[in-house]
């Protein structure tokens, strides 16, 4: 682990308390340094994290609440990074879920120190990245686009989508294929044909299927 003496904004700030935390050696892709901070880690402007190992939590259940109250309302994005290192985790996770929601924390679970370290690294590295990669469909070439669209029908795989496209020549041709045409395709059994036809022929919307929510509200 490299220590940078000068305070930089490029580094993850680490609370002195975390000295000896086994995740620190795994923080390799971004620099980190110790600093006087209230949370355990500060990964960026307004991004901080408290760290909790479930093993520790089972021994000292009150610890995390003290840390939470000391942090108060500071920081915009507050991560509660929890290391799941015990087998009977359900009750504690249930408790932490509730705590994190009540105290405006975003709960993140990691199953190993490496994984926890990777989360910290990623927060630092992506601090200023615009989230385009999760905002829209990735741009693709024609063939991949066709495959993506056809494989969104349940039970249709990539080789089925190639069969469709090569047989009918265009997406329009494939989507307008009749039952008889589909049944003749190599690898297409009745279940697949039915699923595909359901997807292309069923209307987008069915009219008045369920009871009006207003009348339900009145009943209550």
């Amino acid at each position, binding site marked *: 682990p490299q220590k940078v003496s000068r305070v930089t904004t490029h580094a993850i700030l680490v609370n002195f308390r975390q000295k000896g935390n086994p995740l620190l050696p795994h923080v390799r892709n971004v620099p980190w340094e110790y600093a006087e901070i209230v949370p355990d880690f500060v990964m960026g402007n307004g991004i901080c994290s408290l760290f909790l190992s479930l093993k520790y939590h089972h021994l000292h259940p009150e610890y995390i609440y003290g840390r939470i109250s000391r942090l108060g309302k500071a920081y915009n994005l507050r991560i509660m990074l929890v290391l799941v290192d015990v087998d009977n985790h359900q009750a504690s996770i249930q408790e932490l879920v509730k705590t994190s929601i009540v105290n405006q924390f975003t709960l993140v679970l990691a199953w190993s120190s*490496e994984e926890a370290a990777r989360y910290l690294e990623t927060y630092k590295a992506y601090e200023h990245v615009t989230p385009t990669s999760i905002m829209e469909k990735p741009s693709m070439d024609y063939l991949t686009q066709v495959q993506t669209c056809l494989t969104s029908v349940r039970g249709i795989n990539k*080789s089925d989508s190639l069969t469709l496209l090569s047989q009918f020549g265009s997406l329009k041709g494939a989507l307008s294929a009749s039952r008889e045409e589909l049944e003749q395709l190599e690898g297409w059994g*009745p279940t697949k044909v039915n699923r595909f036809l359901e997807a292309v022929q069923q209307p987008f919307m069915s*009219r008045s299927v369920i009871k009006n929510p207003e009348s339900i*509200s009145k009943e209550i």
Partner: protein
Amino acid sequence: MDIPIHLTLSYQKKIFNEVINEDGLCVMAPGLSLLQIAANVLAYFAVPRSLVLLVGANSNDNELMQRELEEELGKTLQIVNTETMSVDKREKAYQDGGIFSVTSRILVMDLLTHIIPTENITGLVLLHADRIVSTGTEAFIIRLYREKNKTGFIKAFSDDPERFLMGINALSNALRCMFLRHVFIYPRFHVDVTESLEKTPADVIELNVDFTDSQKSIQSCLLSCIEATVRELRRYNSAYLDMEEWNIDSALHRSFDVTIRRQLDPVWHRVSPKSKQLVGDLSTLKFLLNALISYDCVSFLKILDTIILSVRTGGFSSNAQPSPWLMLDSANTMIRIARDRVYRSPTGSMDEYYPVLEEQPKWSVLRDVLEEISHENILHESNDPEFSTNSILIMCSEERTCLQLRDYLSTIHYDTKESFKMMNSRLMDYFHWREQYRNMSNSISKIERNSKEKQNTPETSRKGAPASKRRRVRGGGIAASRSTTESNLAQDNFSKDIRLEKLLLSQISKSTYTQEENESFEVLSDTNSIYIYTYNYEMDTLLLNSLRPRFIIMFDSDPDFIRRIEVYKATYPQRATRVYFIYYGGSVEEQKYLYTVRREKDSFSKLIRERSNMAVVLTGENERFEGQETKFLRNVNTRIAGGGHVSVTNEKPRIVVDLREFRSSLPSILHGNNFSVIPCQLLVGDYVLSPNICVERKSIRDLIQSLSSGRLYSQCEAMLEHYEVPVLLIEFEQNQTFTSPPFSDLSTEIGKSDVQSKLVLLTIAFPKLRILWSSSAYATSLMFQDLKSLEKEPDPAVAASIGLEAGQDSTNTYNQAPVDLLMGLPYISMKNYKNVIYSDVINIQDACEVDERKWSELIGPEAGRSLYTFFRKKLKDYE
């Protein structure tokens, strides 16, 4: 009161009486006219003013039940699904009573929103009871029904004994889900069944057909590929796979790939992409084994071409490797033999090829059988409706085999006994198709090249690629290996391909010409007498009854159908019937048949044993729905919470649930945990816990998928706009291990496409988003309880109206499959898809026809134009 019964055989009457007298689960061997008995049960209880429900029926069941009830029993069956009846109509129809077959998803909704008067239901008949699981929709239905109605009957039917033996106590668990105590078991070897069926056996002739040599070689190649794949899989996953007793025989069994998949299921999200690919390969190889039996040689080559191409494209990721089985020598041998069955070069020279077009061996056997029948038909002519007609029924397992036989029978010639005409036209089709195939293959090579260049290692990948790497290209083409680069080789292949095509096409047209004047096969002059159908479960009984065929040719094997013939023969002993049973000896087909028969017998024996060992299941009175204990606990809970706005009350806490969520088990579990579950069509979120808290549920698979499609981002955006506390619920399956998918490689840099990286981006984009990690739906329901304790109850009307624009009706619902496909289209986003589904565009096929101007109006000028072109883009213009 006189109730008509339409059952002929004594065992049928016995089952009927048993089921009428006592609630229970009836497990029968397939083919013993289950639906007919169930229809009689429905009719028996359908007295005026009664309300009888049929649950779990599919569209075939419905059709057959409807016919049986209307024609033989004088009752009507009303079918309820989203298309047939709107909510008002349903409410009225239920009040009037009668027999209803209701889609499970609608029935749940109707029970929860009190559209159906639960107290007045006379009883339920459940079909396919083997599919019941404690967290499933059907179990939920029965629970909702029993909660308010303790007296109505429940009769369950199943013809799949195996499913009651999967897992520990599967039978008693299933019974508990259905609130039943009794099991009636009727295997084929039951004494009453045997007595009824063996009085008048049908005349069966078995015809054992041999594979051709090339088919035998392909089969053994496929088996060694399977073996190698399994070995590989075992190497990577020895910890999870229990394959002690695996041998090559297992490959012939019906579901070995499913078994392997099931063993890996708990760790599926942690299984390496490589192993996932291997599991996929197993299914592909098993499919090829079956295709070898039913596909003609040209179609087999074609599917092989397609599979090789799709395997080459790998995943969408750039570092995907081709499947290991393709690298095996057996794979190459197989590809070569498959091609040699279609066309071959006599001397090994490149310029001389002739079509071989090997026939399927069963074809000539079929022709001989038909010839034999044609002689007998002349001897016996009868028109008595009591007796069989002279028609011939040919049964196949797939529609494509039917088409194949229709083609074959209408083109074969009496003297040459060859199928040239049909096969020639298939070969021509094949070469026309190759044209498209080449385009695809080229563009895939281009993508491969591009992605390699992106990786900045074009040189190493070319030099580093061993001879085996070239092999996969050879699979698609026909050339011998050469020391050129991959893409050049492909180009080379295709130029040869085109030359070959011309050569063969000229030969084909010659041979077709010479045979034009021959006579056609004479049995077929009266084409009406031959019927070719596929096996279709219960519908086959109907087919036999309406055709009354004297000759039945089973072109593919099917144990259930033999049972149906037995029942048919016993019901109408005076109708003469002869059955020809054609199968490939020593092939997967024979093995599969024998295995299925043996397996069924074993299952029934086990089931009978299981029934006798079963602990008594206590249901009914001592079932706690609203136990005193839970009621007390909840009251205490609200007090602890301060009870500021929720005073101590007996009313259940409410959760508004989106309709689509009823596919998952969570709503059923929530209801079991004493929540009042209110189904609504929600545009924002999946679960609304309070006016403030809204939850979007994602399984691991959904999470990965919706993070990369941009869907989750938009969903979070929408939640944030309307709710104080937007929550993302990441839910693991009950049997999945509770660990996240691994980072691709923790030792290197931060990966852009990792789920965790995307999750980080999401939380940075939405600091107010809360994440709820849950190891199972049960855990989720406990967490919901926690979260709700401080909050006000949600209002369904408000929840449903969020995101709705003027003129849009909240009682309308989306249909999942077409909307998913629409969302899969490029240029359609979370923002604009609603414009499409609320417009007058009805479905996807309609959307294909929409003109450019209209698309511009719906999704904007630029996207509109692009989408319009995308639909029409021709593969052959693409370069």
